[in-house]
């Protein structure tokens, strides 16, 4: 199995898991899904400079072949932005749950299912 195949299937698995979770009804699962998607996107961006092994990204006297440094800079920017956004959406989801008593993304108040261990509307009071 080639390196590229492993890399590509890893991205594929991350995206598949991310989409599955992002389509769930509860905010925590959606946030996890978005995080998985953002990991996949970062790996994808990294690979856009081609996968090159053991090559420096910056100028060196002794080598003649380099890896593309730009995708690494792009990934760095993307990581910073997604990290901040994930932190923000976690806090926002928490505030929304505390104020509305529901952690469903569509905001509907539904009777909690047994696995929650929460009675209906128990989270309404902060």
């Amino acid at each position, binding site marked *: 199995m080639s390196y590229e195949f492993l890399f590509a299937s890893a991205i594929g698995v991350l995206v598949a898991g991310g989409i599955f979770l*992002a389509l769930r009804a509860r*905010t925590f699962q*959606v946030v996890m899904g*978005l995080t998985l*998607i*953002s990991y996949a*996107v970062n790996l*994808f*961006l990294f*690979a*856009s*400079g*081609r996968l090159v092994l053991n090559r420096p990204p910056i100028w060196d006297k002794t080598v003649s072949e380099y890896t593309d440094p*730009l*995708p690494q800079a*792009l990934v760095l*920017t*993307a990581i910073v*932005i*997604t990290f*901040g*956004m994930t932190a*923000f*959406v976690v806090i*926002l*989801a928490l*505030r*929304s749950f505390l*104020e*509305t008593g529901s952690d469903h*993304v*569509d*905001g509907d108040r539904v009777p909690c299912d047994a696995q929650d261990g929460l009675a209906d509307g128990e989270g309404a009071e902060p």
Partner: protein
Amino acid sequence: MSLADHLPILPVAIPALAAPFALLVMRRRRALAVGIGFAACLAELAVAVLLMERVSGGTILAYALGDWPAPFGIVLVADRLAALMLVLTAVLALIVLTHAVVTRADRKGWHFHALFQFQLMGLNGAFLTGDLFNLFVFFEVLLIASYGLMLHGQGPARLKAGVQYVVVNLVGSALFLIALGMLYALTGTLNMADMGLAVRDVAPEDQGLLRIAALLLASVFALKAAVVPLHLWLPRTYAAATPAVAALFAIMTKVGVYSLIRVVPQVFGEGAGAAAWGPAPWLLPAALVSACVGFAGVFTARSLAEQAAYAIIGSTGTLLIAVAGWSGASLGAGLYYLVHSTLAGAALFLVADVAARRRGSFGDTASPGPAFGGRGTVALLFMAAAIATTGLPPLSGFIGKLLILQSVAALPNWGWAWGVILGTTFIGVIGFARAGSAVFWKTGEDCPAPPAPGTRLDLVAPALALACLAMLSVGAGIATSYADAAAAQVLEPAASAAAVLTEGPR
């Protein structure tokens, strides 16, 4: 380099400097923060007008950040279209800031003025940048500020809508990055002008990937523009946001439209192989459905703010019908309508707020309520905003729609475009008439009149927006000739590439 050469960076630098200062002084000296906000907005307007004056002759100003030459460094590009959007942003910002200060909406949180300036920084940057990744960064800047502004004032309804808004835009950002990664892998550049040249050399076996990247990028811009079927996030978000903020957001959908106008001709134009005009065939059907869905929403909306939100979707659809023609005439008509629809949408949100402030507990629901004081004046403002939005004479909406109808008549699918534009205008007129008569004409039974508002100053901002629309119709000759020139410049990417890539094509 003289100071005047640094003009293109100022629309980004001024709000970036003003925002932290507003943040610092907000707690102790609120009046100073308001002053900083107004001073920054006025300075942005002055810079935007200066820029417009300099580029109106057809020159394209390229500003290399850090003096790194394109395509290696990031460039800001100021041309007619960018200058037009900058002036529009600055005018809208002044109107919205006036309303926020007069109605004391800026006092509901500590960070309004700082977030407002960061929002303007993101908008101005997105309109100026000539680099695709930089466009992504400025999109994020304006989105992050918009999350804060959208939640300004808080409350359960806003938080609920806010979660959805943030999640949708995070997915949009992920798709944007995927499209950028594919384009970089295929062309080896992120500079728009350079990419427009590099797409010609993409290998035949990679043409499929190029086409996917083009469509993915167009989908992201369509999500920002709230084109059907990617519009579902908009009505709830805009109706829940503080009205002054929602009025500023009227330009956010136009950022998506602007990006389409900027990127498609420049990068996916004639020479782009399989991706040449790739997103174009999808745009017209989506635009037609958007116009129908938007104005159907105007007809069924339960509150004035919700109605304004649907009107934004409908007018963006109408605008995209013109853009989807990709001819100089239709794009010029579209740009004129873009300016008009942004101001008209903002005016609707502001009038909805003015009515809601006077109706006490009835808010802006479109049902008969109390006979509040000053009903006649507010009704007049609402009628003018509705006339502008639906496109009846004498305001600029009529001229805009007329120009669009005229320009698309030369295109293949003109029957559909005419049918939809005229039909949605009719539905919109009925929808606004129904809501207006319920709010301003009928009086509910047993509704004690709420206490009269202490100030009539809150009528100023909507009146200002409507005055801008009146000026746009009076000066339609100048405005349309500028819009036509801007459209011609956008459809001529070679000239832009020559100005940006001073070293010449690779």
